[in-house]
């Protein structure tokens, strides 16, 4: 399989419907067949009872009806109850004095009916609970298998495409060490482009991973840490832009790896689509039940048309500089959505664009107490 077939396989894995994405935890409904079984088994017992009535006692007949209830209850609670009602009616009508009426002369038969009812309910409930557990475990196994296949395919695609890139990048950096002038610049171009391709690949793999249903691993992470680690990977891109940071000393409930990638994409997007020297602002704060990240620039702003189009896969704004392949912002939206969050693009007053990401949470970041006294007192 070549890497693209593998990627295709990943999409099919999530779209073929073999993997249900919404778990159905309700117990399965009893089928019509189970009701037919209930009616037929009671009818058979009634017929048998009528034939054998001269030779058996009422107690034996009651046990025979119990058998019918048991058989029916294997089909679920509904058929079980149906059989109970039918058995009680039939037993009463055909065998309890006065025969051929629903009247009951001997009150002790009411106990028989009550026991029938109890047995029918108990068996029916047990069976339906067992069925539900079985269905759930089957679904869980299916899901685990799909998850495993996804992980295997992803890592194999990643390896196939990254290894050549790593060799190109590595060899070019080796050559750069001993070169100068125009040749050094050319080698730098190879390195830059290899790294760009590597970032595109990261985006492609991320969007595949997130869209195929891999759940974010959420943890409570300080906003400063999220912003800091993303910015540290963008040093060269940020060299030409004054950066303003307003990052609150708060926590966000996010997958740190995915959130870093979202921030890298948004900041990189800002550096790519704005002229050198224009400022970029990164703001991060908490609202009562969400963490909010904002990346704002003073570039040419959003392209014509509805703002949300920038989040479409393969969308490319027609700005002055050549961008990527139009995946960066689509990845951002996929990551935000995977966190049950949202992302919006806003045209700023005074020019420029702003992207705002909302990561909702339960509004209860864990408290970390540090009762420690300062260690070293000023001397």
């Amino acid at each position, binding site marked *: 399989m070549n890497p693209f077939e593998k990627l295709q396989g990943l999409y099919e894995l999530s779209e073929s419907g073999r993997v249900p994405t919404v778990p159905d935890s309700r117990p399965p409904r009893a089928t019509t067949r189970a009701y037919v079984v209930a009616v037929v088994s009671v009818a058979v017992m009634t017929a048998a009872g009528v034939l054998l009535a001269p030779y058996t006692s009422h107690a034996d007949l009651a046990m025979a009806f119990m058998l019918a209830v048991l058989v029916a209850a294997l089909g679920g609670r509904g058929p079980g109850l149906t059989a109970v009602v039918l058995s009680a009616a039939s037993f009463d009508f055909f065998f309890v004095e006065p025969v051929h009426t629903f009247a009951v002369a001997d009150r002790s038969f009411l106990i028989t009916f009550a026991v029938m009812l109890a047995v029918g309910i108990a068996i029916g409930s047990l069976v339906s609970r067992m069925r539900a557990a079985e269905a759930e475990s089957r679904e869980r196994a299916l899901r685990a298998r799909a998850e495993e296949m996804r992980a295997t395919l*992803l*890592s194999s695609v*990643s*390896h196939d495409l*990254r*290894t*050549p*890139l*790593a*060799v*190109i*990048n*590595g*060899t070019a*950096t*080796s050559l*750069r*060490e001993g070169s100068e002038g125009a040749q050094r610049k050319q080698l730098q171009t190879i*390195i830059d482009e*290899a*790294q760009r391709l*590597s970032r595109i690949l*990261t985006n492609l*793999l*991320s969007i595949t*991973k997130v869209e195929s249903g891999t759940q974010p691993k959420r*943890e*409570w*992470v*300080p906003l*400063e*840490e999220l*912003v*800091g*680690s993303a*910015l*540290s990977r963008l040093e060269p891109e940020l060299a030409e832009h004054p*950066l303003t*940071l307003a*990052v609150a*000393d708060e*926590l966000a409930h996010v997958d*740190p*790896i995915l959130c*870093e990638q979202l921030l890298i994409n948004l900041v990189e997007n800002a550096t790519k689509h704005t002229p050198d020297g224009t400022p970029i602002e*990164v703001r991060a704060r908490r609202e009562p039940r969400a963490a909010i990240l904002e990346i704002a620039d003073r570039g040419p702003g959003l392209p014509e048309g509805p703002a949300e189009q920038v989040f479409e896969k393969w969308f490319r704004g027609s700005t002055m500089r050549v961008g990527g392949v139009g995946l960066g912002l689509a990845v951002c939206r996929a990551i935000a959505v995977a966190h049950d969050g949202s992302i919006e693009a806003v045209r700023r007053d005074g020019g420029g664009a702003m992207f705002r990401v909302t990561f909702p949470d339960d509004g209860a970041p*864990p408290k*970390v107490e*540090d009762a*420690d*006294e*300062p*260690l*070293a*007192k*000023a*001397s």
Partner: protein
Amino acid sequence: MTTADTVLVVEDEAPMRRFLRGALQAEGFRVIEASTLATAKLLVTVHVPAAILLDLGLPDGDGLTLLESVRTWSSAPVIVLSARDREDDKVAALDAGADDYLTKPFGTSELLARIRVALRHARAQRAPDTPVLTIGPIKIDQARHEVTNDGKQVHLTPTEYRLLVLLARHAGKVLTHRQLLTDVWGPRSTHQTHYLRVHMAALRRKIEEDPARPRFLSTEPGVGYRLLTDR
């Protein structure tokens, strides 16, 4: 570094081996290569390399098994080669005794810097601990439990101090969340990672000029932290 230092490269992709060989030989290392785990296991015992570069995905098995068998008798630094989206593998390798990792694609300077740090650290483990640790403008006086930044005293809580000392003793090297939690809060630490993150954030605010653009305390998302030395 002495010119006689031998580096074992364990990598199944021939072009990758060529690049690594070229880069390492240019720097004066002696390079031996293995493309399978079986060969690697043999070469490790015969040549006793000073450092090992290990790709985790090998055709005849998981690189972790080599790591585990090497760790039973050797403390030679092992640097794992891995991809950007394999954070769990990196953590597993680091927790199993690997010294550091390189994320593909990486350049020559990154490669050599990691090897230098790993070799220096392997040697330092045999030398007695120095009383004062120095990381750029930051000085940690271990005898007096005092930390200064540019000559100015920094007031740290005991937890922050322990974190800083640990990172400084392993300066340049990544430490996983689990390694930091175990060392600072004890082997039976039940604290969650967010506990560590919050204390790291507090430490960052005390020693970094701009905590959202740290110079020293670098975050390796999904893996751990690293105290940067050469910036």
